[in-house]
């Protein structure tokens, strides 16, 4: 059967992708951030998963305000790189895993998670930056990817508790797939940041630190945070952290924190990266 072996929480700041694409990762500004990514890349290369489920949000790339899916799963065999307003990132197209993705779509819907299904969609920095952060710049991505897209652009996003339950359902579905696949799940976005208004630039180290601790030790308590608490404490765009709960819900209650990296600033954002391994797999 297929198994979820580990979870990766990762910010998806577009400027991190730009720094890699333009080759400026060794500058004084970026080096401390990228130095902290090296151990995660080594860990992931060694783990060599078959499939990654990437929970992310689209930023007015594949979807406009015309149709706003709260939860969506991509079932295509390939996802092209979106033009977000300055041309597509120069990274490889993302290969899907249609068999597992369709199985997830069917299982999730019958498990009462009413997923939107996308047969075709471009993917933006929300998905590609975490791949770049954790895989570097390979000519092709080293595993298949199943995108799960969460609305966090039009208020309200789904609650943290709902996201956590979706993660639990993802796990149940993965474990019903009869092919032996090793799956990792990414929860992306965050950490504290505010990109808009007079309060732009808000960063809350204390909140972020407690959130990282809670992700490992007491994720259910974190699912009780309200959207207003996220926005007040972690900035209006910090509410993206609800997506981490999908990842966490798909893991064991007790996990091993393998790695953590936290850096301020990446452009306007506190960049976090955390790796959690399922103990039941070890």
């Amino acid at each position, binding site marked *: 059967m297929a198994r979820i072996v580990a979870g990766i929480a990762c910010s998806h700041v*577009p*400027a991190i992708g730009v720094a890699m694409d333009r080759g400026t990762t060794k500058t004084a500004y970026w080096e401390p951030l990228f130095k902290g990514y090296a151990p995660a890349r080594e860990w992931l290369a060694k783990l060599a998963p078959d499939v990654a489920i990437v929970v992310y949000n689209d*930023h*007015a*790339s594949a979807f*406009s*305000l*015309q149709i706003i899916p709260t939860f969506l799963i991509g079932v295509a065999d390939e996802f092209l790189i*979106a*033009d*977000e*307003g*300055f*041309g597509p990132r120069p990274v490889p197209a993302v290969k899907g895993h249609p068999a597992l993705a369709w199985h997830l779509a069917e299982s999730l819907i019958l498990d009462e998670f009413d997923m939107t299904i996308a047969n075709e969609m471009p993917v933006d920095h929300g998905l590609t930056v975490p791949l770049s952060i954790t895989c570097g710049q390979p000519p092709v991505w080293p595993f298949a990817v199943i995108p799960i897209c969460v609305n966090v*652009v*039009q*208020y*309200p996003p789904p609650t943290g508790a709902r996201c956590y339950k979706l993660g639990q359902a993802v796990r149940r579905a993965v474990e019903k797939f009869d092919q032996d696949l090793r799956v990792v799940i990414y929860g992306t976005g965050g950490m*504290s940041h*505010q*990109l*808009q*208004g*007079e*309060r*732009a*630039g*808000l*960063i*809350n*180290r204390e*909140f972020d630190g407690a959130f990282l601790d809670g992700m490992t030790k007491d994720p259910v308590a974190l699912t009780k945070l309200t*959207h*207003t608490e996220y*926005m*007040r*404490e972690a900035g*209006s*765009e910090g509410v993206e952290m609800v997506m981490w709960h999908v990842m966490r819900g798909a893991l064991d209650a007790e996990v091993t924190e393998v790695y953590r990296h936290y850096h*301020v*600033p990446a*452009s*306007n954002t*506190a960049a976090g990266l955390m790796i959690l391994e399922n103990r039941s797999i070890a």
Partner: protein
Amino acid sequence: MSQAPDYEDIPGTYVYDSRRGREGYALNMFCMSLNKAENRKQFKENEVVYLQGFRMTEEQRRAVLTRDWLGMLKVGGNIYYTIKIAFCDGLTFQDVAGMMAGVSKETYAQMMLAGGRSPEGNRSKRARKPETDRG
């Protein structure tokens, strides 16, 4: 009419909720059109003419034409959309964030390098007012 949502108490923040969603749809859909290179070219050639293709209010048009980034948020703009105008202009997210915050590019960049804007004193409009002003 329901009560003002609790997040309206957060200072300097424009949550893109249903109210702003109704007000800002056309403005944001104009921004969305800038995902296409051909449209970016046409917009740059003649901004006023290009905007005529969208059912925006005069206020929204003015905010776009004058690049009033904060003003756009006040008339229903969503930052993930309005930023596409900035990309068209060759600006970065940090450039625009600084302008919305009302400080120079250098001051804003320095604030971020020093750890960002503190949440202290920035959590609540109500809490900012002296006791006597409350309620």
